[in-house]
Protein backbone atom coordinates (compact mmCIF):
# COMPACT_ATOMS: atom_id res chain seq x y z
CA UNK A 1 0.00 0.00 0.00
CA UNK A 2 1.60 3.20 -1.14
CA UNK A 3 0.56 6.80 -0.96
CA UNK A 4 1.38 10.16 0.55
CA UNK A 5 0.64 11.27 4.10
CA UNK A 6 -3.09 11.35 4.68
CA UNK A 7 -3.85 8.98 1.80
CA UNK A 8 -5.65 6.64 4.19
CA UNK A 9 -3.11 3.83 4.44
CA UNK A 10 -3.08 3.58 8.23
CA UNK A 11 -6.85 4.02 8.32
CA UNK A 12 -7.20 1.07 5.98
CA UNK A 13 -5.10 -1.18 8.22
CA UNK A 14 -6.96 -0.02 11.33
CA UNK A 15 -10.25 -0.77 9.62
CA UNK A 16 -9.09 -4.27 8.71
CA UNK A 17 -8.19 -4.85 12.35
CA UNK A 18 -11.52 -3.54 13.59
CA UNK A 19 -10.08 -0.50 15.35
CA UNK A 20 -12.26 1.61 13.05
CA UNK A 21 -15.71 0.89 11.66
CA UNK A 22 -15.95 1.07 7.87
CA UNK A 23 -18.61 3.45 6.52
CA UNK A 24 -19.21 1.18 3.56
CA UNK A 25 -17.71 -1.78 1.75
CA UNK A 26 -16.64 -5.21 2.89
CA UNK A 27 -13.57 -6.82 4.38
CA UNK A 28 -13.33 -10.57 3.96
CA UNK A 29 -10.75 -13.19 4.76
CA UNK A 30 -11.27 -16.82 3.71
CA UNK A 31 -14.85 -15.89 2.77
CA UNK A 32 -15.50 -14.59 6.27
CA UNK A 33 -16.56 -11.01 6.80
CA UNK A 34 -14.45 -9.09 9.29
CA UNK A 35 -16.78 -6.10 9.47
CA UNK A 36 -18.35 -5.48 12.91
CA UNK A 37 -16.02 -7.99 14.51
CA UNK A 38 -14.03 -7.03 17.59
CA UNK A 39 -10.35 -6.29 17.23
CA UNK A 40 -9.33 -9.14 19.51
CA UNK A 41 -11.49 -11.60 17.58
CA UNK A 42 -10.02 -10.45 14.28
CA UNK A 43 -6.54 -10.96 15.74
CA UNK A 44 -7.55 -14.45 16.82
CA UNK A 45 -8.63 -15.24 13.25
CA UNK A 46 -5.00 -14.93 12.25
CA UNK A 47 -4.44 -11.28 11.36
CA UNK A 48 -1.31 -9.90 12.94
CA UNK A 49 -1.03 -6.11 13.03
CA UNK A 50 2.16 -4.21 13.76
CA UNK A 51 0.86 -0.68 14.24
CA UNK A 52 2.50 2.58 13.32
CA UNK A 53 5.18 3.34 15.88
CA UNK A 54 5.46 -0.42 16.48
CA UNK A 55 3.45 -0.68 19.69
CA UNK A 56 6.25 -2.32 21.59
CA UNK A 57 5.56 -2.12 25.34
CA UNK A 58 8.58 -0.30 26.71
CA UNK A 59 8.19 -1.26 30.36
CA UNK A 60 8.01 -4.95 29.48
CA UNK A 61 11.10 -7.01 28.75
CA UNK A 62 11.69 -8.34 25.26
CA UNK A 63 10.56 -11.77 26.39
CA UNK A 64 7.40 -10.44 28.07
CA UNK A 65 6.49 -8.64 24.85
CA UNK A 66 6.91 -11.89 22.97
CA UNK A 67 4.95 -13.91 25.52
CA UNK A 68 2.11 -11.45 25.07
CA UNK A 69 2.13 -12.23 21.34
CA UNK A 70 1.89 -15.91 22.04
CA UNK A 71 -1.21 -15.60 24.25
CA UNK A 72 -3.80 -16.70 21.77
CA UNK A 73 -1.65 -19.04 19.69
CA UNK A 74 -1.87 -22.72 20.20
CA UNK A 75 1.86 -23.09 19.75
CA UNK A 76 4.26 -24.19 22.42
CA UNK A 77 5.64 -21.06 24.07
CA UNK A 78 9.26 -22.14 24.26
CA UNK A 79 9.20 -23.42 20.70
CA UNK A 80 7.65 -20.16 19.53
CA UNK A 81 10.25 -18.10 21.37
CA UNK A 82 13.09 -20.22 20.00
CA UNK A 83 11.82 -19.78 16.44
CA UNK A 84 11.71 -16.01 16.83
CA UNK A 85 15.13 -15.85 18.48
CA UNK A 86 16.47 -17.82 15.55
CA UNK A 87 14.85 -15.46 13.08
CA UNK A 88 15.92 -12.36 15.05
CA UNK A 89 19.06 -13.33 17.02
CA UNK A 90 19.43 -9.87 18.57
CA UNK A 91 16.15 -10.37 20.44
CA UNK A 92 17.48 -13.56 21.97
CA UNK A 93 20.57 -11.73 23.18
CA UNK A 94 18.46 -9.03 24.79
CA UNK A 95 15.52 -11.09 25.99
CA UNK A 96 15.76 -9.91 29.60
CA UNK A 97 16.11 -6.23 28.73
CA UNK A 98 13.31 -3.73 28.81
CA UNK A 99 12.00 -3.02 25.34
CA UNK A 100 12.41 0.72 25.95
CA UNK A 101 16.18 0.16 25.79
CA UNK A 102 16.08 -1.24 22.25
CA UNK A 103 17.04 0.73 19.16
CA UNK A 104 14.43 1.64 16.55
CA UNK A 105 15.36 -1.28 14.31
CA UNK A 106 15.36 -3.73 17.20
CA UNK A 107 11.95 -2.53 18.29
CA UNK A 108 10.61 -3.11 14.81
CA UNK A 109 12.03 -6.64 14.88
CA UNK A 110 10.46 -7.21 18.29
CA UNK A 111 7.08 -5.94 17.09
CA UNK A 112 7.23 -8.23 14.08
CA UNK A 113 8.40 -11.22 16.11
CA UNK A 114 5.60 -10.61 18.58
CA UNK A 115 3.05 -10.69 15.78
CA UNK A 116 4.66 -13.70 14.08
CA UNK A 117 4.84 -15.85 17.20
CA UNK A 118 1.05 -16.29 16.98
CA UNK A 119 1.50 -17.75 13.47
CA UNK A 120 -0.82 -15.34 11.66
CA UNK A 121 -1.89 -15.98 8.08
CA UNK A 122 -1.91 -12.24 7.30
CA UNK A 123 0.52 -9.71 8.70
CA UNK A 124 -0.28 -5.99 8.52
CA UNK A 125 2.84 -3.83 8.75
CA UNK A 126 2.35 -0.10 9.15
CA UNK A 127 5.38 1.90 8.01
CA UNK A 128 7.99 -0.46 9.44
CA UNK A 129 10.84 1.60 7.98
CA UNK A 130 9.76 4.83 9.70
CA UNK A 131 12.70 6.42 11.46
CA UNK A 132 15.16 3.68 10.53
CA UNK A 133 18.55 4.17 8.89
CA UNK A 134 18.68 3.13 5.19
CA UNK A 135 20.83 0.10 5.94
CA UNK A 136 18.47 -1.11 8.65
CA UNK A 137 15.53 -0.53 6.32
CA UNK A 138 17.19 -2.64 3.67
CA UNK A 139 17.71 -5.48 6.15
CA UNK A 140 14.13 -5.20 7.32
CA UNK A 141 12.77 -5.37 3.77
CA UNK A 142 14.93 -8.40 3.18
CA UNK A 143 13.48 -10.08 6.26
CA UNK A 144 9.91 -9.31 5.18
CA UNK A 145 10.63 -10.63 1.71
CA UNK A 146 12.09 -13.88 2.98
CA UNK A 147 9.15 -14.34 5.37
CA UNK A 148 6.76 -14.26 2.43
CA UNK A 149 8.94 -16.53 0.33
CA UNK A 150 9.47 -19.22 2.96
CA UNK A 151 5.95 -19.47 4.40
CA UNK A 152 2.28 -19.06 3.49
CA UNK A 153 2.24 -15.66 5.17
CA UNK A 154 0.57 -12.79 3.34
CA UNK A 155 2.02 -9.40 4.21
CA UNK A 156 0.16 -6.14 3.67
CA UNK A 157 2.88 -3.56 3.86
CA UNK A 158 2.10 0.11 4.20
CA UNK A 159 5.06 2.24 3.20
CA UNK A 160 6.01 5.75 2.30
CA UNK A 161 9.35 4.45 1.20
CA UNK A 162 7.95 3.43 -2.18
CA UNK A 163 11.08 2.25 -3.95
CA UNK A 164 12.17 -0.28 -1.34
CA UNK A 165 8.59 -1.52 -0.87
CA UNK A 166 8.03 -1.98 -4.62
CA UNK A 167 11.22 -3.98 -4.84
CA UNK A 168 9.95 -6.73 -2.56
CA UNK A 169 6.19 -6.61 -3.23
CA UNK A 170 4.23 -8.80 -5.62
CA UNK A 171 1.27 -6.50 -5.86
CA UNK A 172 0.93 -2.77 -5.25
CA UNK A 173 -1.98 -0.48 -4.52
CA UNK A 174 -1.57 3.28 -4.60
CA UNK A 175 -3.95 5.35 -2.51
CA UNK A 176 -4.58 9.05 -2.89
CA UNK A 177 -6.86 10.86 -0.43
CA UNK A 178 -8.79 7.71 0.31
CA UNK A 179 -9.19 6.59 -3.30
CA UNK A 180 -7.39 3.79 -5.12
CA UNK A 181 -5.49 5.30 -8.05
CA UNK A 182 -3.55 2.20 -9.02
CA UNK A 183 -3.96 -1.51 -8.31
CA UNK A 184 -1.59 -3.74 -10.22
CA UNK A 185 1.47 -5.94 -10.12
CA UNK A 186 4.30 -4.20 -8.28
CA UNK A 187 6.50 -4.24 -11.36
CA UNK A 188 3.80 -2.52 -13.41
CA UNK A 189 3.26 0.18 -10.79
CA UNK A 190 7.00 0.64 -10.46
CA UNK A 191 7.32 1.15 -14.19
CA UNK A 192 4.47 3.65 -14.52
CA UNK A 193 6.03 7.06 -15.04
CA UNK A 194 2.90 9.00 -14.05
CA UNK A 195 2.44 7.13 -10.83
CA UNK A 196 6.09 7.47 -9.99
CA UNK A 197 6.07 11.17 -10.55
CA UNK A 198 2.73 12.28 -9.15
CA UNK A 199 1.92 9.83 -6.39
CA UNK A 200 5.10 8.11 -5.33
CA UNK A 201 7.56 10.97 -5.50
CA UNK A 202 10.05 8.79 -7.31
CA UNK A 203 11.96 10.95 -9.75
CA UNK A 204 15.03 9.62 -11.47
Amino acid at each position, binding site marked *: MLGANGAGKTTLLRTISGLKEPKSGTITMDERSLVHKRTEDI*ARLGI*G*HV*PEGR*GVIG*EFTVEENLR*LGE*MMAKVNLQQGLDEQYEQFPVLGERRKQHAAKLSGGERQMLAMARALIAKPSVLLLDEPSLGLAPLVTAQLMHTIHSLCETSDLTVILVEQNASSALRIAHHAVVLHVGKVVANDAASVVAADENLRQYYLGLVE
Partner: protein
Amino acid sequence: MDPFLTSRIVTDVLGGLTNGVIFGMVALSLVLIWRSTGVLNFAQGAMPMFATYVGFALLSYHFGYWACVVACVIVGLLIGGLTERLLVRGLYGKPEINPIVVMVGFLIVLEAVAAAIWSSFPRSLPTPFSFKDWQLAGKPLALSPFTVYEIVTALIVMTAVAVLFRFTKLGLQLRASAVAPEVSRLLGVRVGRLLTLGWMLSTVVGVITTILVASNLFQGLTPTVMDGIFAYGFIAAAIGGLESPVGAIVAGVLLGIINQFVTDYVNQNAVIIIALVLLIVSLMIRPSGVFTKRSERRV
Protein backbone atom coordinates in the same frame (compact mmCIF):
# COMPACT_ATOMS: atom_id res chain seq x y z
CA MET B 1 19.93 -0.83 75.94
CA ASP B 2 17.43 -0.24 78.69
CA PRO B 3 15.16 -3.32 78.63
CA PHE B 4 12.10 -1.14 79.13
CA LEU B 5 12.96 0.96 76.09
CA THR B 6 13.71 -2.14 74.04
CA SER B 7 10.37 -3.67 74.82
CA ARG B 8 8.65 -0.36 74.08
CA ILE B 9 10.31 -0.22 70.66
CA VAL B 10 9.45 -3.86 69.94
CA THR B 11 5.86 -3.20 70.96
CA ASP B 12 5.67 -0.13 68.71
CA VAL B 13 7.14 -1.96 65.73
CA LEU B 14 4.79 -4.90 66.15
CA GLY B 15 1.76 -2.67 66.70
CA GLY B 16 2.78 -0.53 63.72
CA LEU B 17 3.28 -3.58 61.57
CA THR B 18 -0.28 -4.71 62.21
CA ASN B 19 -1.68 -1.36 61.10
CA GLY B 20 0.92 -1.09 58.37
CA VAL B 21 -0.07 -4.29 56.57
CA ILE B 22 -3.64 -3.00 56.53
CA PHE B 23 -2.54 0.32 54.99
CA GLY B 24 -0.38 -1.67 52.59
CA MET B 25 -3.37 -3.78 51.49
CA VAL B 26 -5.54 -0.72 50.88
CA ALA B 27 -2.70 0.87 48.94
CA LEU B 28 -2.25 -2.33 46.98
CA SER B 29 -5.93 -2.45 46.03
CA LEU B 30 -5.72 1.17 44.85
CA VAL B 31 -2.61 0.41 42.80
CA LEU B 32 -4.32 -2.63 41.23
CA ILE B 33 -7.13 -0.49 39.86
CA TRP B 34 -4.89 2.43 38.94
CA ARG B 35 -2.52 0.16 37.04
CA SER B 36 -5.17 -1.81 35.27
CA THR B 37 -7.65 0.96 34.43
CA GLY B 38 -6.07 4.32 35.24
CA VAL B 39 -8.85 5.20 37.68
CA LEU B 40 -8.20 6.47 41.18
CA ASN B 41 -10.94 4.61 43.01
CA PHE B 42 -12.20 6.73 45.88
CA ALA B 43 -14.84 4.10 46.66
CA GLN B 44 -12.10 1.57 47.30
CA GLY B 45 -13.01 1.56 50.99
CA ALA B 46 -16.79 1.68 50.58
CA MET B 47 -17.24 -1.10 48.02
CA PRO B 48 -15.57 -3.74 50.22
CA MET B 49 -17.40 -2.35 53.26
CA PHE B 50 -20.71 -2.99 51.51
CA ALA B 51 -19.65 -6.48 50.46
CA THR B 52 -18.63 -7.26 54.04
CA TYR B 53 -22.03 -6.19 55.37
CA VAL B 54 -23.79 -8.38 52.82
CA GLY B 55 -21.52 -11.35 53.50
CA PHE B 56 -21.79 -11.14 57.26
CA ALA B 57 -25.57 -10.72 57.11
CA LEU B 58 -25.46 -14.51 56.81
CA LEU B 59 -24.19 -14.75 60.39
CA SER B 60 -27.69 -14.40 61.76
CA TYR B 61 -28.52 -17.64 59.95
CA HIS B 62 -25.80 -19.37 61.99
CA PHE B 63 -23.32 -19.73 59.23
CA GLY B 64 -19.80 -19.70 60.66
CA TYR B 65 -17.08 -17.06 60.31
CA TRP B 66 -15.30 -18.72 57.40
CA ALA B 67 -18.52 -19.26 55.45
CA CYS B 68 -19.21 -15.55 55.85
CA VAL B 69 -15.69 -14.69 54.70
CA VAL B 70 -16.24 -16.75 51.55
CA ALA B 71 -19.61 -15.05 51.02
CA CYS B 72 -17.96 -11.61 51.41
CA VAL B 73 -15.34 -12.51 48.81
CA ILE B 74 -18.00 -13.66 46.35
CA VAL B 75 -20.09 -10.53 46.91
CA GLY B 76 -16.89 -8.47 46.54
CA LEU B 77 -16.18 -10.09 43.16
CA LEU B 78 -19.71 -9.23 42.05
CA ILE B 79 -19.62 -5.63 43.29
CA GLY B 80 -16.20 -5.04 41.74
CA GLY B 81 -17.22 -6.51 38.41
CA LEU B 82 -20.60 -4.78 38.23
CA THR B 83 -19.11 -1.41 39.23
CA GLU B 84 -16.60 -1.63 36.41
CA ARG B 85 -19.18 -2.71 33.84
CA LEU B 86 -22.00 -0.34 34.81
CA LEU B 87 -20.33 2.71 36.35
CA VAL B 88 -16.76 2.97 35.16
CA ARG B 89 -16.78 1.47 31.66
CA GLY B 90 -18.09 4.66 30.04
CA LEU B 91 -15.49 6.83 31.76
CA TYR B 92 -12.25 5.52 30.27
CA GLY B 93 -10.45 8.09 28.20
CA LYS B 94 -12.51 10.91 29.71
CA PRO B 95 -10.78 13.62 31.79
CA GLU B 96 -9.37 12.14 34.98
CA ILE B 97 -11.72 14.17 37.14
CA ASN B 98 -14.79 12.33 35.77
CA PRO B 99 -14.13 8.92 37.33
CA ILE B 100 -13.02 10.63 40.55
CA VAL B 101 -16.32 12.50 40.86
CA VAL B 102 -18.31 9.38 40.02
CA MET B 103 -16.44 7.24 42.54
CA VAL B 104 -16.72 9.84 45.31
CA GLY B 105 -20.46 9.92 44.60
CA PHE B 106 -20.58 6.13 44.69
CA LEU B 107 -18.74 6.17 48.04
CA ILE B 108 -21.37 8.48 49.53
CA VAL B 109 -24.25 6.41 48.14
CA LEU B 110 -22.82 3.13 49.43
CA GLU B 111 -22.21 4.52 52.91
CA ALA B 112 -25.70 6.03 53.05
CA VAL B 113 -27.38 2.85 51.84
CA ALA B 114 -25.38 0.73 54.29
CA ALA B 115 -26.35 3.03 57.14
CA ALA B 116 -29.99 2.90 56.06
CA ILE B 117 -30.06 -0.89 55.96
CA TRP B 118 -27.77 -1.86 58.81
CA SER B 119 -27.57 1.42 60.83
CA SER B 120 -24.30 3.13 61.63
CA PHE B 121 -23.97 1.31 64.91
CA PRO B 122 -20.75 -0.75 65.09
CA ARG B 123 -21.45 -4.41 64.48
CA SER B 124 -18.90 -6.75 65.95
CA LEU B 125 -17.73 -9.63 63.82
CA PRO B 126 -16.78 -12.81 65.64
CA THR B 127 -13.30 -14.11 64.98
CA PRO B 128 -11.82 -17.52 65.45
CA PHE B 129 -8.69 -16.03 67.00
CA SER B 130 -7.97 -14.63 70.43
CA PHE B 131 -7.07 -10.97 70.99
CA LYS B 132 -5.09 -11.75 74.12
CA ASP B 133 -1.50 -10.57 73.75
CA TRP B 134 1.27 -13.02 74.27
CA GLN B 135 3.66 -12.27 77.11
CA LEU B 136 7.38 -11.74 76.86
CA ALA B 137 9.22 -11.85 80.19
CA GLY B 138 6.00 -11.06 81.98
CA LYS B 139 5.06 -8.10 79.74
CA PRO B 140 2.42 -8.07 76.99
CA LEU B 141 3.98 -8.11 73.54
CA ALA B 142 1.45 -6.31 71.31
CA LEU B 143 1.19 -9.57 69.46
CA SER B 144 -1.82 -11.84 69.71
CA PRO B 145 -3.14 -14.79 67.70
CA PHE B 146 -5.42 -12.27 65.98
CA THR B 147 -2.59 -9.96 64.93
CA VAL B 148 -0.67 -12.96 63.61
CA TYR B 149 -3.78 -13.93 61.64
CA GLU B 150 -3.91 -10.37 60.33
CA ILE B 151 -0.26 -10.25 59.29
CA VAL B 152 -0.20 -13.76 57.80
CA THR B 153 -3.37 -13.09 55.79
CA ALA B 154 -1.92 -9.85 54.47
CA LEU B 155 1.31 -11.60 53.50
CA ILE B 156 -0.60 -14.34 51.68
CA VAL B 157 -2.72 -11.81 49.75
CA MET B 158 0.30 -9.68 48.82
CA THR B 159 2.31 -12.70 47.70
CA ALA B 160 -0.61 -14.01 45.67
CA VAL B 161 -1.00 -10.66 43.89
CA ALA B 162 2.74 -10.40 43.25
CA VAL B 163 2.90 -13.94 41.85
CA LEU B 164 -0.16 -13.31 39.71
CA PHE B 165 1.26 -10.16 38.17
CA ARG B 166 4.83 -11.27 37.78
CA PHE B 167 4.71 -14.91 36.86
CA THR B 168 1.42 -15.78 35.24
CA LYS B 169 -0.01 -15.40 31.77
CA LEU B 170 -3.07 -13.71 33.22
CA GLY B 171 -0.93 -11.20 35.11
CA LEU B 172 1.01 -10.36 31.96
CA GLN B 173 -2.27 -9.75 30.12
CA LEU B 174 -3.61 -7.60 32.96
CA ARG B 175 -0.48 -5.46 32.93
CA ALA B 176 -0.50 -5.19 29.14
CA SER B 177 -4.18 -4.21 29.02
CA ALA B 178 -3.43 -1.43 31.45
CA VAL B 179 -0.44 0.13 29.74
CA ALA B 180 -1.27 -0.60 26.11
CA PRO B 181 -4.93 -1.51 25.58
CA GLU B 182 -4.94 -1.06 21.83
CA VAL B 183 -1.80 -3.07 21.21
CA SER B 184 -3.09 -5.76 23.54
CA ARG B 185 -6.30 -6.04 21.55
CA LEU B 186 -4.28 -6.30 18.32
CA LEU B 187 -2.55 -9.27 19.93
CA GLY B 188 -5.88 -10.92 20.69
CA VAL B 189 -6.03 -10.05 24.39
CA ARG B 190 -9.63 -9.62 25.56
CA VAL B 191 -8.98 -6.28 27.23
CA GLY B 192 -12.58 -5.58 28.27
CA ARG B 193 -12.81 -8.74 30.35
CA LEU B 194 -9.44 -8.10 31.94
CA LEU B 195 -10.43 -4.62 33.07
CA THR B 196 -13.47 -6.11 34.78
CA LEU B 197 -11.26 -8.76 36.34
CA GLY B 198 -8.87 -6.08 37.61
CA TRP B 199 -11.72 -4.39 39.48
CA MET B 200 -12.93 -7.72 40.84
CA LEU B 201 -9.48 -8.63 42.16
CA SER B 202 -8.96 -5.25 43.71
CA THR B 203 -12.33 -5.35 45.46
CA VAL B 204 -11.51 -8.78 46.87
CA VAL B 205 -8.24 -7.46 48.31
CA GLY B 206 -10.35 -4.66 49.82
CA VAL B 207 -12.88 -7.14 51.24
CA ILE B 208 -10.19 -9.18 52.97
CA THR B 209 -8.74 -5.97 54.40
CA THR B 210 -12.14 -4.79 55.61
CA ILE B 211 -12.83 -8.11 57.32
CA LEU B 212 -9.50 -7.88 59.15
CA VAL B 213 -10.21 -4.30 60.21
CA ALA B 214 -13.80 -4.91 61.24
CA SER B 215 -12.98 -8.15 63.05
CA ASN B 216 -10.78 -6.16 65.38
CA LEU B 217 -12.21 -6.15 68.87
CA PHE B 218 -12.07 -2.38 69.22
CA GLN B 219 -13.43 -1.52 65.79
CA GLY B 220 -16.42 -3.47 64.59
CA LEU B 221 -18.11 -3.00 61.22
CA THR B 222 -19.65 0.41 60.47
CA PRO B 223 -20.53 2.05 57.13
CA THR B 224 -17.55 4.38 57.52
CA VAL B 225 -15.18 1.75 58.90
CA MET B 226 -12.72 2.15 56.02
CA ASP B 227 -12.72 5.96 55.69
CA GLY B 228 -9.75 6.72 57.90
CA ILE B 229 -7.86 3.66 56.75
CA PHE B 230 -8.52 4.59 53.15
CA ALA B 231 -6.85 7.96 53.79
CA TYR B 232 -3.70 6.27 55.08
CA GLY B 233 -3.80 3.67 52.31
CA PHE B 234 -4.10 6.48 49.79
CA ILE B 235 -1.12 8.31 51.31
CA ALA B 236 0.88 5.07 51.23
CA ALA B 237 -0.04 4.49 47.59
CA ALA B 238 0.98 8.04 46.67
CA ILE B 239 4.27 7.79 48.56
CA GLY B 240 5.05 4.36 47.17
CA GLY B 241 4.13 5.38 43.67
CA LEU B 242 0.74 4.47 42.24
CA GLU B 243 2.45 2.31 39.64
CA SER B 244 4.23 0.07 42.08
CA PRO B 245 2.49 -2.69 44.08
CA VAL B 246 5.65 -3.40 46.06
CA GLY B 247 6.11 0.32 46.74
CA ALA B 248 2.53 0.57 47.98
CA ILE B 249 2.99 -2.29 50.43
CA VAL B 250 6.36 -1.12 51.72
CA ALA B 251 5.10 2.45 52.12
CA GLY B 252 1.99 1.16 53.91
CA VAL B 253 4.00 -0.89 56.40
CA LEU B 254 6.44 1.95 57.06
CA LEU B 255 3.58 4.40 57.50
CA GLY B 256 1.97 2.07 60.03
CA ILE B 257 5.18 1.82 62.05
CA ILE B 258 5.84 5.57 61.90
CA ASN B 259 2.26 6.23 63.03
CA GLN B 260 2.75 3.95 66.00
CA PHE B 261 5.92 5.74 67.08
CA VAL B 262 4.25 9.13 66.65
CA THR B 263 1.30 7.97 68.74
CA ASP B 264 3.58 6.60 71.41
CA TYR B 265 6.16 9.38 71.61
CA VAL B 266 4.31 12.49 70.39
CA ASN B 267 0.55 12.52 70.35
CA GLN B 268 -2.16 10.57 68.63
CA ASN B 269 -3.51 13.71 67.02
CA ALA B 270 -0.18 14.34 65.34
CA VAL B 271 -0.42 11.09 63.36
CA ILE B 272 -2.40 12.34 60.38
CA ILE B 273 -0.36 15.57 60.28
CA ILE B 274 2.92 13.66 60.17
CA ALA B 275 1.49 11.34 57.51
CA LEU B 276 0.47 14.30 55.35
CA VAL B 277 3.85 15.95 55.84
CA LEU B 278 5.51 12.72 54.72
CA LEU B 279 3.26 12.69 51.67
CA ILE B 280 4.07 16.28 50.74
CA VAL B 281 7.80 15.82 51.25
CA SER B 282 7.86 12.64 49.21
CA LEU B 283 5.85 14.24 46.41
CA MET B 284 8.26 17.17 46.38
CA ILE B 285 11.37 15.02 46.25
CA ARG B 286 10.11 12.15 44.11
CA PRO B 287 6.78 13.11 42.53
CA SER B 288 6.43 9.77 40.77
CA GLY B 289 6.70 7.90 44.05
CA VAL B 290 9.66 6.60 46.00
CA PHE B 291 9.52 3.15 44.45
CA THR B 292 8.67 3.78 40.81
CA LYS B 293 11.10 3.74 37.96
CA ARG B 294 9.12 6.18 35.89
CA SER B 295 10.43 9.70 35.99
CA GLU B 296 7.20 11.64 36.11
CA ARG B 297 3.52 11.28 36.67
CA ARG B 298 0.46 13.41 36.38
CA VAL B 299 -0.71 14.27 39.86
